[in-house]
């Protein structure tokens, strides 16, 4: 027993642990500055955000120790139970959760608020690792791909119901894991397109979306088949069907929207075109057509769910996330404030505790999602460059560790860690500098908040533990 514990301490990748400690420390410094109050200057003041964060960091050290003390087999065998438990918690949060800022994502246990969605990420990563490391599972099989996708989608869908779109979008990161494990690049592309389509459908008018889809399909058809005449013929048939439909309805004095015309003419066009496609064996056209119809039905159902099934407050919440109804002062206010704060930092920054923009609460949620503003304002370009560069080093270290694993379980898990951290870092920083829509997700180890800090720590230290035993792993 004594021997093996010593062994573990010797095998731990201390470089990663050191990087982790540096990130957490610099994060705390910035939270201290962003929430600084002259009346409560002590770091340990529990009434202040930095005080709380400080105690949470101390607690993470305990958590990290416990995680390192457990045998890797524990994570392997308890992957499914933990996953099911987190799904159960996500359901519970919908029933008994507390609503903060229009979204029900917290459970209060004995005065402590926890956010199950944060822990669902860890559980999902474990189960995905367990599933993809099974000997006969391969992503080249459609059935296995569907199962792997379901593992990812189940928690994401429950989180969407809260509705906490930001945390749900994080699960998109797992696509990188699937890619590394053999997902076909085309599937990746189509999946990506559908995500884009999902967001566009909610932002843009449905008629325009349908028009764009149709145009895009014709364009792709032209590029893929390289038979301009065929594309033109197809387009003419579609337009003609639509025209007849519109004319007929108008003559009958029945109002008909452009959306319905396009939608119906595509369906009618299918009936007319199908024999041609079949006779000429236009496989690629057929696939393209299938994707187009699917995309149409998809936009239709997204629209339907959004307008008819969701409650008004859920709609508002999603609109806020997508920036449609976001800012109290009109579009782009939050991001503008964030840019002003970062921009005012200049090359060297205003100095620790000297930031003005981030002090007046002009930047919303400034010690949580917009903590990067404080870095930008007080530490300048040197600070932001340093933080990004350091994050990249940290991410590359994880990627390196993931690739050096012998067991598939550890590798897949490592990739999940890498993907989740990458997604959080890139999206969070991207939104503060106006290059990404504001979908409130935290910056790992920097943002204020116990739940997210603990979840990120657990995520990372499980991997460090797996890595320590990489030479002995038999699963």
């Amino acid at each position, binding site marked *: 027993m004594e021997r093996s514990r010593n062994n573990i301490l010797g095998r731990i990748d201390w470089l990663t642990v050191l990087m982790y400690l540096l990130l957490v420390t610099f994060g705390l410094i910035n939270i201290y500055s962003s929430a600084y*109050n*002259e*009346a409560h200057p002590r770091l340990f003041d529990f009434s202040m955000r930095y005080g709380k964060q400080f105690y949470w960091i101390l607690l993470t050290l305990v958590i990290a120790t416990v995680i390192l003390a457990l045998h890797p087999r524990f994570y392997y065998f308890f992957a499914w139970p933990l996953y099911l438990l987190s799904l159960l918690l996500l359901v519970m949060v919908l029933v008994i959760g507390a*609503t*903060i*800022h*229009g979204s029900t994502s917290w459970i209060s246990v004995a005065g402590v608020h926890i956010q199950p969605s944060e822990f669902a990420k860890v559980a999902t990563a474990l189960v995905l690792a367990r599933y993809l*490391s*099974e*000997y006969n599972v391969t992503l080249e099989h459609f059935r296995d791909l569907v199962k792997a996708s379901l593992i990812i989608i189940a928690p994401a869908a429950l989180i969407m119901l809260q509705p906490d779109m930001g945390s749900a979008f994080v699960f998109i990161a797992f696509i*990188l894991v699937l*890619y*590394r*494990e*053999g997902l076909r690049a085309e599937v990746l592309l189509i999946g990506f397109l559908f995500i884009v389509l999902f967001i566009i459908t909610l932002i843009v008018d449905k008629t325009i979306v349908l028009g764009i889809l149709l145009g895009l399909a014709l364009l792709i058809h032209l590029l893929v088949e390289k038979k301009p005449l065929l594309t033109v013929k197809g387009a003419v048939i579609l337009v003609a069907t639509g025209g007849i439909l519109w004319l007929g309805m108008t003559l009958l004095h029945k109002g008909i929207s452009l959306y319905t015309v396009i939608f119906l003419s595509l369906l009618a066009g299918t009936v007319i075109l199908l024999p041609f496609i079949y006779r000429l064996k236009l496989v690629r056209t057929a696939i393209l057509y299938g994707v187009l119809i699917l995309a149409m039905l998809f936009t239709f159902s997204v629209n339907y769910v959004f307008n008819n099934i969701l409650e008004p407050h859920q709609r508002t919440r999603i609109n*806020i996330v997508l920036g449609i109804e976001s800012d*109290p*002062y*009109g579009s782009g*206010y939050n991001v*503008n*404030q964030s*840019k*002003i704060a*970062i*921009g*005012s*930092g*200049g*090359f060297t920054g205003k100095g620790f505790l000297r930031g*003005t*923009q981030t*002090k*007046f*609460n*002009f930047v*919303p949620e400034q010690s949580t999602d917009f903590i990067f503003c404080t870095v*930008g304002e007080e530490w*300048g*370009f040197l600070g*932001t*460059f340093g933080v*990004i*560069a350091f*994050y*990249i080093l940290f*991410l*590359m270290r994880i*990627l390196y560790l993931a*690739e050096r694993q*012998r*067991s*598939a379980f550890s590798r897949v898990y490592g990739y999940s860690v*890498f993907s989740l951290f*990458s997604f959080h870092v*890139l999206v969070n*920083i*991207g939104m503060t*500098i106006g*290059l990404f829509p504001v979908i409130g997700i935290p910056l790992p180890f920097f943002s204020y908040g116990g739940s997210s800090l603990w979840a990120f720590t657990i995520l990372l230290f499980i991997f460090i533990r797996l890595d320590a035993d990489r030479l002995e792993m038999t699963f």
Partner: protein
Amino acid sequence: MKDTSQYAGRRYVVAGLVILIALIYIVRLLTIQVLDKSYRLSASNNVLRHITQYPARGLIYDRNHTLIVSNEAAYDLMVIPSQVESFDTAEFSALLEVPEKDIREGLRKATVYSRLKASILVKQIPAVTYARLSEKMYKYPGFYVQPRTLRYYNRHLAAHMLGYVGEVTEKTIQKDPYYKMGDYIGISGIERSYEKELRGRKGVKIYLVDVHNRIKGSYRHGRYDTAAVVGANLTASFDAGLQAYGEYLMNNKVGSIVALEPATGEVLCMVSSPGYDPELLVGRNRRTYFPALVQDTLKPLFNRAIMASYPPGSTFKVVNALIGLQEKVLYPSYKYECHAGYYAAGVHVGCHIHRSPLNLVEAIQISCNAYFCNVFRNILDDPKFPTIYQSFENWKHHLEMFGFGHPLGIDLPNELSGYLPDTSYYDRYYHKNGWSSLTLISMAIGQGELGFTPLQMANLAATVANRGYYLTPHVVKEIEGRDSINRRFREEHLVGIDRKYFDIAVEGMDRVVNGEPGSGSTARIAHIPDIRVCGKTGTAQNPHGKDHSIFMAFAPKDTPRIAISVYVENGGFGATYAAPIASLMIEKYLKGKITRTWLEDYIRKTDLIHGEKQK
């Protein structure tokens, strides 16, 4: 062990993707932090000041486009403690006309809240003080004035319908990120239910301010400013003249008047008495008057028209008649005897002395209790249904179709649903199958467990006026910049009773008011010489004191333009006060003037509040 080494090369794609995005970010940061100088503040002493641009709240007009609610400017004095330098508090206090100790105390509180964030030091400075202050502002760094608007009432009426505006609570701020500490929000009435339309959208202007508290200009030429959007103006459906007259008549009485336009469901007036002057709840006034209004035992803040529930009394006979006719357990020709009441198996329901027997129309005219006890029993003992449970459910379903037992859905907050009992209620009170139509007989004449709001009663009058349907009552007619109000206010709700039956009920209600003298009409006092008013009186039993006087009516008979319900608490019989008030209201609305001044005087001189207290 599983091998996916053929995909190992993908690590470079993944790593490349992440590094590429990071590089884009770094270039972006280089641009906004180093290359683009305009983000930098020109001198280190300069600070940005964000001044919220509060849009003017939407105006409210009445149905004749008379301006009722508008805005007046007000100014809050704000302070950012960290920017304050030492100053002459005595001079400052004289300038503001605020005691010196209040300023010191306010400043202390603001500092405790935050040294760096702005707090309100003095709320709603008068315009004159503001003019004087703005010249001397340079002497007081760290202070600035935040313009706002307050409600201004051009006509002091309809307080319950209009509602009031007040500061947002912490809870609302948590729920809706639009609101910030110190913002105003509609708290009741139209101000609350149309808050989203009325409030418009806040904007923000960012100014550069130098060390001498002088605004040096807008930051980056206003590139990051957002314009405030003015709130939408509303046209309320009420008639200010009628509303004022209703409030005038209800003076010194407790109760309410609701008048509807039957064809549209628009609320023509909604009086709840005693009321209050809406100005008492504006700005600084509110702190003074609100506690008194809350503590008043007559509850002036309570909108009786939609929040009080009373038994309908005899007005309910009309409903039972319609249901009986529709279910074919009653025909207009049916005659029932009445010998000063209804007697059956030990149950006795009294009635006044009148000729007997009566047919249906006469029974409505004279309001015979015995007749309607028979009708009610016909409905509940209908052989179409195997047991009373089914016939009761059927009867209750009819009532729900009329809009009883649930909120009608008016566009005002806190509408009460009223009360309809269900069979389990009686199972609990008696035992299962231990009750019969005779047990429930008090509901035949609208007493017992029933509870209707005055709005539901007015809606009943509108339904009869329309001979079979109603439109959901609403208090807002038009929203500026919108094609129409909510679609649900334009849908006709059929109550499921044939028009021909309504014609019979209307005939009875006509005779209530316009029957020959001496024929037993119960509300001849409501008769107006050249307007055909149809109505029905009611008296709600009140276990706590004198009965409530009720009247529901509509007019003119053939082309109804107004449907009305009047409740006078502790007013005794329906004909005593409620009927004359309804009649005066109808005359006022349809003719614009009152010919029967003696009736008006009689109502005006009646004091049911203080008279009661003297006893």
